[in-house]
């Protein structure tokens, strides 16, 4: 699967989508879900929580292991994707459509610090095991 060019990425395997209304949605990459295996639980951050870039903010439990998600940018959690929380297998089936939470960025300049698709592909290649 190719890494979607229009998204931004973190070294910790989250993808970030800039939405038209200025918010960003966050999910995990194809590589991340492949390493995790079948996802069985998602614990998203609570709506209203204020995060700083890099904060641990969510947990994904798979059959194999638990993984933490980190806030890709600072901001307030304005929504959680209930459909994906209820059906965690969506993360394996369609990782780039299965957004987990939505943030209203408090420091939009941070978006520039994220990786582009090519930069992320290098990270993913080094992480393969």
């Amino acid at each position, binding site marked *: 699967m190719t890494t979607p060019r229009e998204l931004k990425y973190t070294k910790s395997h989250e993808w970030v989508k800039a939405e038209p209304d200025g918010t960003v949605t966050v999910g995990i990459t194809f590589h991340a879900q492949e390493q995790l*295996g079948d996802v069985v*639980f998602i614990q998203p951050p609570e709506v209203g929580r204020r995060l700083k870039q890099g904060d641990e903010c969510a947990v994904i*439990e798979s*059959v194999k292991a638990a993984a933490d998600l980190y806030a890709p940018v600072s901001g307030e959690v304005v929504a959680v994707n209930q459909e994906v929380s209820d059906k965690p297998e969506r993360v394996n089936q369609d990782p780039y459509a299965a957004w987990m939470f939505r943030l209203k960025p408090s420091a939009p300049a941070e978006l520039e610090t994220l990786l582009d698709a090519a930069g992320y592909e290098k990270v993913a290649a080094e992480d393969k095991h």
Partner: protein
Amino acid sequence: MTANALRSTPLADAHRALGARMVDFAGWEMPLHYGSQLEEHRAVRSAAGVFDVSHMLALDVEGGGAQAFLRRLLANDIARLKTPGQALYSCLLNEAGGILDDLIAYWRGESRFRLVLNAGTAEKDCAWILSQREDASVRISPRRDLAILAVQGPRAREKTWEALPRTRAATRTIGYFHSAEVDGMLIARTGYTGEDGFEILLPAEVAAGAWNSLLKAGVAPAGLGARDTLRLEGGMNLYGQDMDETVTPYECGLAWTVALGEPRAFIGRQAVEAKAPTRERRGLVLIDKGVMRSHQQVRCAAGAGEITSGGFSPTLNRSIALARLPRAAGAEEAEVEVRGNWLRAKVVEPPFVRHGKVLVNL
């Protein structure tokens, strides 16, 4: 760079061709899954799946002194087997009563027995068994020339007959924990999933052909990930997690496998009879959201314990676990420390699932 290259079963190429995610298990390159271990689990519970378990080792023990040797070696009594082809589940104990391995022993008739040993303990077991042999006329032969396929599920036997028609006549009427031999294959109605099915020990050179025939008959390939969630639901222990040399069968829910009814001297007997166990195996079903995993701490009215095996149960759709807890009649609730939080769990008696049915009250 590989310092110690992984061993491969005769089906390694077949797994890779199916797109399996291969992992190191006990020094063997084995398929973890072929896409989704949850789907493979469900295929076994609802129809049929096939596992390559050729990393396990068949060990033949033969000769006039074989039965007496096995009666001394194994905690369960091989003399209980009344019909050729019958199988026995037993622990192999050390002198301190600690578990060296769990295994199935098949009586093949006359003075021929076949043990099937776990992959991770095969070498240790063989060395131990050889060292305990006193009668040099007992022949002990590791059978690395055999592959092992486990076909499991409510439709497993039917699919096996469809794929391998020559096995039907010999195996159609065998009961649970019995086996028959046909065409160089030993076919046993045993398994590690809590479903019906066969385990087939067959020459390595015909394994790929049999595997392909089973897949053509619609049996789903299933990997070690599904094998683990299935056996956990089935309440079956995993050596190295739920039991090891530091515990006796009484602390692992395996009192029923220790045959003390007759004055039979077996290795570990004196030790297990001398000390009363203080801990026991219980099942846990997590009430809160999360997944229980090995070594997480457990607390309950009787005291503190730990998870030996934990995971997600696809059939119950929540986390289940086996735990070692202080002995306490009537314990119903416990708390498990999962990633820093104490979560609520229900204490139950395993198995959680058998033949597709949930057996515990949720």
